């Protein structure tokens, strides 16, 4: 057997053996060290636990492992104790002594740090019993929270690089492509182009050299699956890329990552270095004739660079504007050479497909969309986090079973998928099975997989305005339709949200949207009207209310709302007065307060601060706002109450 291959297998066996020996005797404390949990103090908790274990001389019985993103970011910083799978959330470094004392020494799980089920209000000890994890299907994220992303041994112990071994030992490049094509894998970046076909086109190109690019320029606001993937299991991307390179016939690859993801860059850099050490990258990979190397290129904060031709220009050091396609990058790409650009999640699917076979993979999902998809479930939702679910799952399952519903039992209004290129799917389509075609039909798109949940307090005009602002900012300016079209859309939306909408504005949006779509060159322009068009399709009455009645039904648009203090309820406690940042609340102690509308900036601080049992402050809009008369000046509460009592008596007396 070739030397390097043997060495790799030996390392893997050793790692497995170690895990076997440990299991039962040693507890692994898997502390989440994804960006989310680190910001909450993940590293500090890890250190505190290590110190405590050291102090109590438990080093033989417990090991602390920093893992990548666990997914349940809403509960972070969090910890899972393996092998039992006890889940602890909302940790602080001060909890370390209790945890070690109770759980490790006495074997008693700590109830007060457990996840509490919102329905039964009871603590749930095990991760496997938490509904958030139950409906998920980890394929790409199979290793999340289970390995130390910085140790290649951990990845090897969980069958890592076995797919690569299989490929190099027994499959020809064409067989690999055939397998990927049969699996039905489609691009996870958004458009859903079949991966196998893309690879074949590039393989058939005669010109060399060819390049492979992993696209991790995850610019969609609200999407962070690629980042988490790299933070929790960078080797799955490296392995996927090596296999892809072998299939296509590529000797050099790049991973393009946003500079906003320093932790992911760091972990991938380490993964590439250790892969090189094990001769998984470089010349003669695992003693075969196949050579491939990988390089990281960072973006510098331009949304348009996620578009493939723009990304190519960015790597080349050219001005990162998209160009006309065809020719597609698979024919003319980096430095004019055939180039395959795949999303990071797509590439991370590859090892699993090769290892377990296309037949297995194609049993997951719907007829047209195979496999699983990672979504980031964010916004107005109880269980914020990263989820991996089979294609074809319904929105209801995602939002209510996994997401645990909307906070405060508010009504589910819409979910925004696909970032600024996607659209809003209304509550009425909650039973829609999620796949590429269904989302497209509903006027949205898969996009990279951000899912932003919106409740009844979200104004659809405001949401469209936000996205158009984003795309307007990020448009590179090459096509007039995109540059000026987004400007015009923004102008009209701003006008509508400020209550200056004119008759015909809604029709104008409906006309301009498709024009921008048709006339723009790249994906950014072709999809930028989607948020407007989809909200117009499902929530037209909201636009009409803004234009015709000057009313914002969700009470969001500042120019259309007023804050109003109900004199009957205001006890004159001065809370809102003290907290008003602009000094718009007038009054004194035991006087009914009045908001000076001319000064009020509508920040909403007063509404938040007013105690719920008083609830004297209301947001009003439209007709109500216009007709409501508040007091001219503050008057003593007693005087006001007396006046009211008099009025009531007078009415009754009559």
């Amino acid at each position, binding site marked *: 057997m070739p030397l390097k291959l043997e060495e790799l297998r030996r390392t893997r066996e050793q790692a497995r053996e170690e895990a076997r020996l440990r299991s039962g005797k040693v507890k692994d404390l898997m502390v989440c060290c994804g960006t989310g949990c680190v*910001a909450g103090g993940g590293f500090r908790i890890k250190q505190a636990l290590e110190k405590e274990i050291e102090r109590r001389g438990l080093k033989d019985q417990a090991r602390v492992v920093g893992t990548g993103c666990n997914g349940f970011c809403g509960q972070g910083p969090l910890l899972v104790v393996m092998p039992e799978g006890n889940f602890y959330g909302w940790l602080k470094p001060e909890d370390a002594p209790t945890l070690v004392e109770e759980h490790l020494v006495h074997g008693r799980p700590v109830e007060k740090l457990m996840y509490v089920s919102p329905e039964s209000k009871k603590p749930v000890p095990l991760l496997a019993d938490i509904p958030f994890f139950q409906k998920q299907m980890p394929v790409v994220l199979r290793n999340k929270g289970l390995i130390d992303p910085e140790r290649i041994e951990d990845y090897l112990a969980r069958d890592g690089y076995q797919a690569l071994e299989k490929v190099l030992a027994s499959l020809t490049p064409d067989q690999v492509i055939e397998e990927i094509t049969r699996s039905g894998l489609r691009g996870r970046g958004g458009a859903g182009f079949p991966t196998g076909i893309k690879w074949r086109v590039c393989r058939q190109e005669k010109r060399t050299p060819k390049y492979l690019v992993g696209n991790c320029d995850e610019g969609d606001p*609200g999407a962070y699956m690629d980042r988490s993937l790299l933070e929790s299991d960078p080797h799955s991307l490296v392995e996927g890329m090596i296999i892809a390179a072998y299939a296509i016939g590529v000797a050099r690859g790049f991973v393009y990552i946003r500079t906003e993801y320093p932790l992911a860059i760091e972990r991938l850099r380490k993964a590439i270095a250790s892969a090189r050490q094990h001769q998984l990258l470089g010349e003669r990979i695992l003693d075969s004739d196949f050579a491939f190397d990988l390089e990281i*290129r960072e*973006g*510098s904060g331009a949304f348009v660079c996620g578009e493939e031709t723009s990304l190519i220009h960015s790597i080349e*050091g050219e001005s990162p504007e998209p160009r006309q396609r065809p020719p597609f990058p698979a024919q003319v790409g980096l430095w004019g050479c055939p180039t395959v650009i795949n999303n990071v999640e797509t590439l991370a699917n590859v090892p699993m497909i090769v290892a377990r076979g296309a037949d297995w993979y194609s049993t997951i999902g719907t007829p047209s969309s195979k496999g699983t998809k990672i979504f980031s479930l964010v916004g107005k939702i109880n269980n914020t986090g990263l989820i991996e679910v089979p294609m074809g799952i319904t929105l209801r399952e995602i939002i209510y079973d996994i997401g645990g519903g909307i906070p405060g039992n508010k009504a589910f209004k819409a979910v*925004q998928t696909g970032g600024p290129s996607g659209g809003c799917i209304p509550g009425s389509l909650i039973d829609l099975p999620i796949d590429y075609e269904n989302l497209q039909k509903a006027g949205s798109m898969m996009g990279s997989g951000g899912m932003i949940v919106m409740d009844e307090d979200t104004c659809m005009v405001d949401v469209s305005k*936000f996205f158009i602002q984003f795309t307007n900012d990020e448009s590179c300016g090459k096509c007039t339709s995109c540059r000026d079209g987004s400007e015009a859309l923004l102008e009209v939306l701003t006008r509508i949200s400020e209550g200056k909408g004119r008759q015909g504005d809604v029709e104008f949006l409906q006309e301009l949207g498709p024009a921008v779509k048709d006339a723009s060159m790249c994906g950014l322009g072709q999809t930028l009207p989607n948020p407007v068009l989809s909200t117009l399709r499902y929530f037209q009455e909201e636009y009409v209310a803004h234009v015709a009645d000057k009313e914002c039904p969700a009470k969001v648009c500042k120019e259309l709302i007023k804050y109003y203090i109900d004199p009957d309820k205001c006890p004159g406690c001065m809370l809102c007065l003290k907290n008003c940042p602009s000094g718009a609340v007038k009054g004194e102690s035991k006087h009914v307060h009045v908001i000076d509308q001319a000064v009020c900036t509508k920040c909403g601080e007063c509404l938040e601060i007013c105690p719920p049992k008083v609830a004297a402050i209301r947001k009003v809009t439209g007709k109500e706002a216009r007709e409501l008369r508040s007091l001219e000046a503050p008057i003593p509460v007693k005087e006001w109450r007396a006046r009211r009592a008099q009025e009531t008596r007078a009415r009754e007396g009559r």
Partner: protein
Amino acid sequence: MSCEPLRSQPVGAALVVGGGIGGMQAALDLAAGGIKVHLVEGRPAIGGVMSQLDKTFPTNDCAMCTMAPRLVEIGRHRDIEILSLSEVQSIQGGPGDFRVTVRKRPRFVNESKCTGCGTCVANCPVHNVVQPLEPPRIELEPAYREQVAGILARHRHRTGPLMPILQEVDAALHYFPEGVLRYLAQETGYPLAHIYRIATFYSAFSVVPRGKYVINVCMGTTCYVRGSQRLMDKLSESLGIKPEETTPDMKFTLKSVRCIGCCGLAPALTVGGEVYGKLTRKDVPDILRKCKEAA
């Protein structure tokens, strides 16, 4: 100053000095009015500075698209005579009756026959072609010399070196001083305009100095719906600067960024690579204090 009286009959010829876009348009307008025009230009060809521009203010129109039709029209116009490589020596007379001496430098090429094919340049044994003067070499300010030279040495031989170079220079200096950009242009062989374009395209780069701590407030959708704007307002108020500005003591720069992928922590911000999440306005003084203490 006294003017000689106009003759009863104008001569009907005009001289335009300078073949830039203004001169070209003037020549065309005059010629359209039936007046013979002599267009004097000091350089070997008309076109002026505009021919070097990509886009023009304020309409962002492509400069060549504006110019090219005029160039062609002037070339074709029977009433316009182009005097290139020429200089006005003296002007005598008054309105309606000028006498101008123009000195024309030799071109050694018969302009009426030349098609501009360029074969002579390629075949010239001594390469005696008109070349612009060698621009003076740019030396870096001593403050940056070592850092920038080191970065250049590390990356200049890579394929596609520009982005890694710019990223490292930005990380080291926090912005691009003009001298550094000029130096990079000279050393990498990229035109300065190209480097400047890249340096201003990406939002992570800056050509104005930035503070030691760059506060990036996430304005992604999730953070936005959870109130990042109010966070930004508070920061802006506490630091006394607007977004995208830097405090006078060069300590803080306030910036908004696109989603940093910490949606579980919304609203969030980063300072120097550290993420702060689940923030409210009340957390702002704490964050600023921490940075000040670290400094």
